[in-house]
């Protein structure tokens, strides 16, 4: 029965991918892509990678979808010249995509069996961290340096987006609210965020012991914030506001501070003192969740569209 489920899932994913590639208008392709993200989440569930399934649903289905829809709406308004690709471009893209797929398939099919894995070592050291979710242990204890740099990259990406603002709008607020806010949208923006915030807090808290964690929680918070800004219930903040900028850096800053404290307390950068690892990790995660939420929210909002107030 499980094999049948997998076959149906793979067939659905392939058909949906074909639909996205063949869609005539951009908007149809984006909607197909959002659906693809959700279906891919199901695929990750089948591979028993529940952490990845959560991230795929949150990023692939939620925030990326909004980002792409915004871009589509923007380019449609500016009535750009005909952007239809020439047949040679399409053929080149198809050949490249097929080459990447074939290469990946070749590598996957030729993995030694059993594949080399660090999983037993990661599970064995789990007790020392006090955590029960091995994915969180990898992200915030074993490979904490990678996670730290990843969060800094997010902020660099935001700096890149902000720098697209023209000089006279620098420091101003981005504009998300459409010209006309449909009634159902403003209703949804009032009803959904309380549940969303609750789910985000739960996702952060459960991440220490079960699938979930700071990135998923931050993404949900960002989605709820974006919803409120989209419906015009709250305007986007000025990008030069001090509180906003403090929120952006609080996560990486706490992470970095704990890293340097590691020299004094546990004899190495990002080393946690024995016995206190779990509370420290939860503290870092709480700060990171806030920073990720604000960073993703501002990334999707885009560069400043209004002059800074006073």
């Amino acid at each position, binding site marked *: 029965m499980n094999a049948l489920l997998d076959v149906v899932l793979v067939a659905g994913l392939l058909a949906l991918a074909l*639909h996205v590639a063949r869609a005539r208008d951009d908007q149809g392709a984006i909607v197909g892509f959002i659906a693809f993200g959700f279906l891919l989440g199901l695929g990750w569930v089948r591979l028993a990678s529940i952490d990845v399934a959560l991230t795929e649903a949150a990023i692939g289905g939620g925030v990326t979808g909004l980002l792409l829809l915004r871009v589509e709406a923007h380019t449609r308004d500016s009535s750009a010249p005909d952007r239809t690709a020439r047949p040679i471009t399409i053929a080149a893209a198809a050949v490249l995509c097929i080459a990447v797929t074939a290469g990946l398939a070749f590598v996957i099919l030729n993995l030694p069996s059993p594949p080399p894995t660090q999983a037993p070592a990661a599970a064995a050291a789990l007790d020392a961290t006090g955590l029960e979710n091995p994915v969180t242990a990898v992200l915030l204890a074993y490979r904490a340096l990678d996670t730290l740099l990843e969060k800094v990259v997010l902020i660099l990406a935001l700096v890149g987006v902000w720098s697209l603002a023209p000089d006279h709008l620098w420091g101003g607020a981005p504009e998300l609210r459409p010209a006309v806010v449909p009634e159902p949208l403003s209703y949804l923006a009032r009803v*959904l965020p309380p549940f969303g915030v609750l789910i985000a807090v*739960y996702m952060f808290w459960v991440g220490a012991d079960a*699938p979930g964690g700071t990135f998923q929680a931050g993404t949900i918070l960002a989605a709820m914030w974006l919803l409120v800004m*989209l419906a015009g219930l709250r305007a986007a903040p000025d990008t030069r506001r001090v509180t906003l900028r403090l929120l952006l850096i609080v996560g990486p800053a706490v992470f970095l501070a704990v890293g340097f404290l590691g020299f004094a307390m546990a004899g190495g950068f990002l080393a946690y003192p024995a016995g206190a690892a779990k509370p420290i990790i939860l503290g870092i995660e709480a700060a990171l969740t806030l920073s990720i939420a604000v960073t993703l929210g501002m990334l999707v909002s885009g560069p400043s569209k209004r002059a800074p107030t006073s």
Partner: protein
Amino acid sequence: MPDFLTGAAVFILVVTGLGLFRVLRSQVAVERMMAVQLLGTGGAAVILLLGTATASDALTDVALLLMLLSAFSCAAFTLGQSSSATATERAEEKP
């Protein structure tokens, strides 16, 4: 029992998939967006059934997230709608 639950999940996945392609091929933009809503509901059902079949509680969280974000995606879709001429049409349609 797990086999029956997985079978039910397959059934729902197939039905959702068929509905998905029917809706995605629609000429009306709003109907296409309902495809995402359909997949959110159907996908959550599939995940809940699989979670019960394999007795893994964490899958319930995935279903929860799927529901939340499919509702969010629908809201995001209105963004592309109201910035163009369709906005005025939709405003006029309102009673």
